[in-house]
């Protein structure tokens, strides 16, 4: 008699994904390299003053993280396609949502590590300093990163069986991420400049995260068992 525990399956899948990434370093290396290139190229492309930097940094930072996250999001399902391992999950009694949550949490950790490593570089290259309350930056980072990975994990699963999934993922993900991206950029800019309150944008991010997390959890079983 077998009975899969959803929390246990999520934990086991997350631990397995972290172990696989630790051994291969496929996602983190590609993300870091990509994000580093963006920082360096942008810093050479224009030479803003400290005030200008604070105004544009929100956009630069989040666009860099969004593009870099796509690399990790493609990797997360690609490893399930090798040797058709996903079929072993599909024939098991383990709930689909446990797999989705584990993948989303894994991607959240990878992107968070990227952000932790890249943020000091952004601060140095663009001479950044928060005029508004700095703790809000952490809230925006957590909510914004979850917004990127929850949709990214879901749409990466949808594009999994398409022939050009590397192209398909950004085509699906970027348009639907616009409200979240707008909230992240505006909230970050407002905290860095201190010109207006970030509260509205933070609330918008919370709502976005709740809606898209629920929708993804609700629909993921269909995606997993689709042919």
């Amino acid at each position, binding site marked *: *008699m*077998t*009975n*899969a*525990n959803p929390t*246990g*399956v999520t934990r*086991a*899948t997350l631990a*397995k994904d972290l*172990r*696989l990434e630790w*051994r*291969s370093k496929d996602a983190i290396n590609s993300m870091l390299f990509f994000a580093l290139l963006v920082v360096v190229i942008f810093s050479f492309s224009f030479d803003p003053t400290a005030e200008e930097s604070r105004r544009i940094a929100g956009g630069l930072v989040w666009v860099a993280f969004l593009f870099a996250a796509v690399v990790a999001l493609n990797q997360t399902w690609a*490893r399930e396609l*090798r*040797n*058709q*391992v996903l*079929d*072993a*999950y*599909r*024939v*098991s*009694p*383990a*709930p689909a949502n446990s797999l989705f949550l584990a993948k989303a949490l894994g991607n959240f950790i990878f992107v968070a590590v990227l952000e932790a490593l890249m943020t000091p570089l952004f601060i140095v290259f663009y001479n950044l300093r928060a005029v508004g309350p700095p703790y809000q930056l952490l809230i925006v980072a957590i909510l914004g990163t979850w917004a990127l990975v929850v949709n990214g994990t879901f749409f990466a699963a949808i594009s999994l069986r398409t022939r050009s999934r590397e192209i398909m993922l950004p085509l699906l993900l970027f348009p639907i991420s616009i409200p979240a991206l707008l909230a992240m950029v505006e909230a970050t800019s407002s905290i860095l400049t201190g010109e207006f309150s970030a509260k509205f944008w933070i609330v918008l991010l919370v709502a976005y995260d709740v809606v898209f997390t629920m929708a993804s959890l609700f629909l993921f079983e269909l995606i997993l*068992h689709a*042919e």
Partner: protein
Amino acid sequence: MPSATLEPAPGHPIVSVANLVKQFGRFAALRGVTAEFAPDRLYAILGDNGAGKTTLLRSLAGLSAPTRGTVSIMGTTNLREVCAQLGYMAHPSLLYDELSGMENLRYFARLYGIDSEQRCPEVIRAVNLDPALERSVGQYSQGMRQRLSLARALLNDPKILMLDEPFSNVDAYSAREMTHLLKSLRDQGKTIFVVTHQAALLEGVADEFVRMEAGQIVRRSRDLNLERSLEADLRG
């Protein structure tokens, strides 16, 4: 959550398919397969490439939704209800190359809520592999992968075992060992489906040889020699 408590009614087939059709675009991989399979038997599914053997097995495992028709296992057509009772071994290994054999098995054991500390060494020994082997699966020989893949399919002690080409790339000795294992599993009361091109390995072990051609079951025979002579006659 799928239930694992269903049992076939006495005297009833454990697996039955009715008018099963599976189309991929305009290509029909299965063309109206209708069959019943009794419990506690080992079925060898034979046929040329493209005959529909793998598609039939995937349909039985719930991996491939029928275009038309039904698959019923232990009296239910909702295969999620009985998935904890099924063991499936595919032609690809369904294993993570970067993990060791035990790491793979421990992970898959969690998907079934199984106590991995006891069960994983048990199944890994059953297929004649060493539980202490630290190598990643990517460094295994093809034969070792096949055996580990069989161990994965056995993890949940399934009532029905579905094996797609379990003997491919396995040396003669290991293939015989695998055959003995399948025989003992059948004797323990499991129903086993083996898709294979190496029917001779199952001579004296399989209870029935099921011949597929062009997406249909064309013949069922209890004797491999009879099956071979019929096949030879038909091919002229």
